[in-house]
């Protein structure tokens, strides 16, 4: 009897701890989203209340959409992120296939060379990257960002994908070779479809730091036409510090797409992180 009661109490404490932390994690985001739909008076007089008939207002969103070119920023972020992910996955999978499928002199060295970038951040080369982009005329283009993010994402992608490609059955590939398929066909037709779950994991891992990066957009592409959402929001908020409606709405606009994507892909993401752990 007492044992059962203590176990109920223990479960209660566990839920209390996890619930309290969940509240801490969600509350700031909730607060911003809720207050972005209020009038200025509503924001200050009752920050914790949901908007009601008297305090509801979209004035913040109107300011943002009128003043800032957020659609353009979204488009830039989308182009950069999608193009980088595509290149990381394509080039990364090709290199991973070469490293995991064939034995050749220098294989291990090549794998180590590509793995260097997992630990050494690309940011440390910024001075020379900027000089290189100036020399090639790529400053203030999305191409510059795509190149940098592709290089940034490749090391981890090659590492993860070659782990998975080792698990693809040799019999299947050899059967393809017997049927006269070229190595390229074997890679694109047989192997790639089989490692699709791993590709999805790598895509999610690659996407988050690219979408959220402030450093490279700030340095390589700060022009109005090439601003990403992160940089756009940063600069816009800097200009409108005192306009709380605009600031809160900008933050909400920057949060919402990430939030939606997260709720769609969170299972995939979490499964990716805990991959191999599931018994």
């Amino acid at each position, binding site marked *: 009897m007492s044992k059962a009661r203590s176990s109920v109490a223990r479960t209660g404490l566990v839920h209390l701890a996890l619930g309290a932390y969940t509240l801490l994690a969600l509350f700031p*985001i909730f607060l911003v989203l809720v207050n972005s739909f209020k009038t200025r008076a509503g924001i200050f007089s009752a920050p914790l209340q949901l908007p009601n008939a008297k305090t509801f207002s979209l004035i913040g969103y109107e300011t943002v959409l009128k003043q800032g070119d957020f659609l353009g920023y979204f488009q830039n972020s989308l182009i950069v992120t999608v193009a980088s992910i595509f290149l990381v996955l394509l080039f990364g999978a090709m*290199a991973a296939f070469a490293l995991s499928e064939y034995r050749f002199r220098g294989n291990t060295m090549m794998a180590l060379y590509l793995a*260097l970038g997992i630990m050494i951040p690309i940011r440390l080369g910024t*001075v020379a990257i900027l000089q290189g982009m100036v020399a090639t005329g790529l400053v203030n283009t999305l191409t510059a960002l795509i190149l940098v993010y592709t290089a940034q994402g490749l090391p981890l992608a090659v590492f993860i994908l070659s782990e998975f490609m080792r698990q693809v059955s040799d019999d299947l590939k050899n059967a393809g070779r017997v049927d006269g398929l070229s190595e390229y066909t074997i890679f694109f037709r047989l192997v790639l479809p089989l490692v699709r779950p791993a590709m999805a994991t790598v895509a999610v891992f690659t996407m988050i730091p690219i979408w959220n990066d*402030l450093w490279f957009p700030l340095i390589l592409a700060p022009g109005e036409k090439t601003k990403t959402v992160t940089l756009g929001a940063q600069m816009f908020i800097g200009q409108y510090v005192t306009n709380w409606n605009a600031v809160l709405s900008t933050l909400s606009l*920057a949060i919402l797409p990430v939030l939606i994507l997260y709720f769609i892909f969170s299972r995939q993401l979490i499964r990716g992180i805990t991959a191999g752990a599931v018994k």
Partner: protein
Amino acid sequence: MTTLDTPEPDIVAKRPVRWHIAVFLLPAVLVYTAVMIIPLFDTLRLSLFRVVDGQSVFVGLDNFRTVFGDPLWSASFWNALRNNILFFLIHMVVQNPIGIALAALLSLPVLRFRGFYRTAIFLPTILSFVIVGFVWKLILSPIWGVAPFLLDIVGMKAFFAPWLGRPGSALITVSLVSVWQNIGIPMMLIYAALLSIPDEVLEAAECDGVTGWSQFFKIKLPLILPTIGIVSILTFVGNFNAFDLIYTMQGAIAGPNYSTDILGTLLYRTFFGFQLQLGDPNMGAAIATAMFFIILAGVCLYLFVIQRRIRRYQF
């Protein structure tokens, strides 16, 4: 690309040069080398040069002498390094233990709402530093008054101060905001490690009467030490090239009075210049090089000392 050919003598005769290996490797190696490796080494090289009368001149280690020794430079460099170390230590003592605790709770058997907790607690980690920085800046702002209001509920209103505006507390506050955001990474990695402990091990422990707290400290914790090592090195590398959050919350001058200046913000100011200070690529390269060696030292320490001492268990 003859190096790509397999050297095994008995089959070398019948095997032609396998061009497809080069084709598979080429795009990745090309982009990676051209955009990452060459600029990285070029930055190290640039740190040995200085522009004198419009000409780039080789000056050996002079730039480093300036960064470490010249009173105009060294004060800000050592200040940034000190702050960066404190920034890292706060992550190690706050983020990682809380992350481990949350992972331990989440991995308890028969826990309801597990998926919900997991998703919710990981959410801040996927947001950008810019969003997180501004959100907390608003919440902690004395103008809005949300923070004092919340503290009032728990009877601690007197404790409130404009933390971000005071040199004594700004760095700690920013570090804690960073902890709030990044806690999902240790939590998830350790959660995965805890899940991979075989049931037989835990059942054996239970048969021997080792349960609850002592089970966690005596059985589970030693088994997840390698993961804690990985989490620590990830935290180290992440903290020593951090920039975005401080830039967003405290600006490029990392105020008040440089009290939140870390190596990333110092690099940005040195390289690009800020307000009255002119940008200097060579000095920027010198600071980037210093950061490179700090990170390299940390990674080597982990790979060659810590990782080898940690006992690993194979199941």
